[in-house]
């Protein structure tokens, strides 16, 4: 509560300061500045860089000040200081990262913990896409298969993949296979629905054009429907990757011997808050990187997205 108050106070202070200063320093000439009314015009909102930098600095400052960090010059009074098991100073997290990167944690190196999680995600996602995409196409192209799989997909879609963990444990145990099956199930329905939506999104005029140019059904599938569905499939893949990453972390919280989720769960048992924080930050960075990688792949592989 005190913390929140301090944070808001700092926010207000810096805001007021920035506003006062920018009254003096004229912003560089740009078309936005010619607008007389900008409130409500989202396109005229330029994220203030000063604010971004200040925001990150303030978080670190508060973090450091209340944990007696050697990195910050200001320190909160001793009775307000947090103990490291609640919140370690930032340098602890950093040193922990370095020491774990060098010496490993629980018999595995940091890299092994992270790469096993990433590998699980990739394997599960890949299998899910391998089955889900053809399934989605079948559903988009055929009355019978649509009818057959519709009830299954509609029922499985809202089941959180995590709810399947106990069943997967009973059926497949707790080893690699079980985790990959879980991730497979997490990706499967998302990819099937994306592929089905991709088929649904094909402009009829394109299909008709292909027909009157003499293409056969197989040719239409290969040259018209598949490329047209790719952007949708990519969007689905981004969602599926996000879900898979969340699912693998959760699955590792419940049962694993290594992995990113395992690391933070075990560390939390032993109140090693610095490792937990380090793990969460790494998980966040990997999640962010996966999303960025998918976006980049999308730009390269389906440059025509949204240009039809």
């Amino acid at each position, binding site marked *: 509560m005190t913390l929140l108050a301090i944070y808001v106070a700092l926010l207000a202070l810096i805001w007021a300061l920035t506003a006062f200063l920018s009254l003096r320093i004229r912003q560089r000439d740009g078309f936005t500045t010619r607008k007389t009314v900008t409130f409500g015009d989202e396109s005229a909102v330029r994220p203030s860089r000063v604010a971004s930098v200040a925001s990150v600095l303030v978080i670190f400052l508060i973090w450091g000040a209340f944990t007696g960090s050697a990195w910050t010059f200001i320190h909160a009074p001793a009775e307000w200081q947090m103990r490291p098991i609640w919140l370690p100073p930032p340098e602890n997290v950093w040193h922990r990262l370095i020491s774990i990167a060098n010496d490993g944690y629980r018999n595995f190196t940091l890299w092994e913990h992270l790469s096993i999680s990433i590998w699980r995600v990739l394997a599960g996602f890949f299998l899910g896409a391998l089955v889900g995409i053809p399934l989605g196409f079948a559903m988009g192209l055929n009355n019978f298969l649509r009818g057959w799989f519709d009830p299954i997909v509609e029922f499985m879609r809202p089941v959180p993949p995590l709810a399947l963990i106990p069943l997967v444990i009973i059926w497949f145990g707790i080893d690699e296979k079980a985790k990959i099956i879980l991730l497979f199930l997490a990706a499967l329905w998302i990819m099937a629905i994306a592929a089905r939506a991709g088929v649904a999104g094909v*402009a009829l*005029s*394109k299909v*008709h*054009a*292909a*027909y*009157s*140019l*003499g*293409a*056969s059904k197989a*040719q239409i599938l290969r*040259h*018209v429907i598949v*490329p*047209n569905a*790719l952007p949708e499939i990519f969007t689905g893949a981004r969602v599926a990757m996000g879900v898979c990453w969340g699912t693998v972390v959760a699955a590792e919280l419940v049962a694993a011997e290594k992995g990113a989720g395992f690391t933070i769960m075990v560390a939390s048992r032993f109140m090693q808050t610095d490792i937990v924080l380090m793990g969460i930050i790494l998980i966040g960075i990997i999640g962010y990187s996966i999303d960025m990688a998918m976006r980049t792949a999308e730009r390269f592989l*389906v*440059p*025509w997205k949204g*240009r*039809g």
Partner: protein
Amino acid sequence: MADLRIENLSMTFSLPNGSKIEALKDVSLTIGDGEIVSVLGPSGCGKTTLLNILAGFLAPTEGSVRLGDKPVTGPDRSRGMVFQQGALFEWMSVAKNVGFGPRMAGRKRAEIDSRVDALLDTVGLQGFGDKAVYELSGGMQQRVALARCLANDPEVILMDEPLGALDALTREKMQGLVLKLWKDTGKTIVLITHSVEEALLLGERLIVMAPRPGRIHAEYRLPFAEKGVGEDLRAIKRLPEFSARRDEILEMIWEMEEEIMGRSEVAT
């Protein structure tokens, strides 16, 4: 090559709510080999439905269409289509789009390439072969669509408002191109349009349709398509007989539309 014979065509759509729409009723028409026919009519009078039946995408509920002595039962490379927009394959380059038909037919690589080059020349897109289609302007995209259709050497070309999405000047240029292609290739062309001027300029024959039920309301035989070539379209528009025809047809359409709109406004 052969005539396109449309006999007693009727098309009734059943709506989910049980009511029926007579999109076409008892339409008969024969389009000669190498003729260019424009079709004009208010929204919902069945123009697109008619073209879809000619293309073979729809089977009529009654009547038949024959091209020469073959009945039309499905889409075929002998009847090419040009759509208003969005029918190009944006994941292929311009050249790949144009060569699509021959490629699907399994033609040889070299043969396809030379044909594509020639067609890009014809439609005025020399050197654009490697571009992505979405980098082109609307007018250029329609040139690609025309070239793609011609690549298959169809007997009939069906166009559904091919120039509807273009701005005035581009549209005028494209009208010239359509006329030129018609003259050079001698294809049978059926062209749907909403613009009276375009219908006058591009139709040897002009069919005016009326809705509910969709039917042929009037037919005109026009001299302008025969006369106009390339760049002197504007001169034709200045001819007094052109203005006279335009006023005559506008008047007729206004009356027809008024009558229909009056009816429909009561209906809603």
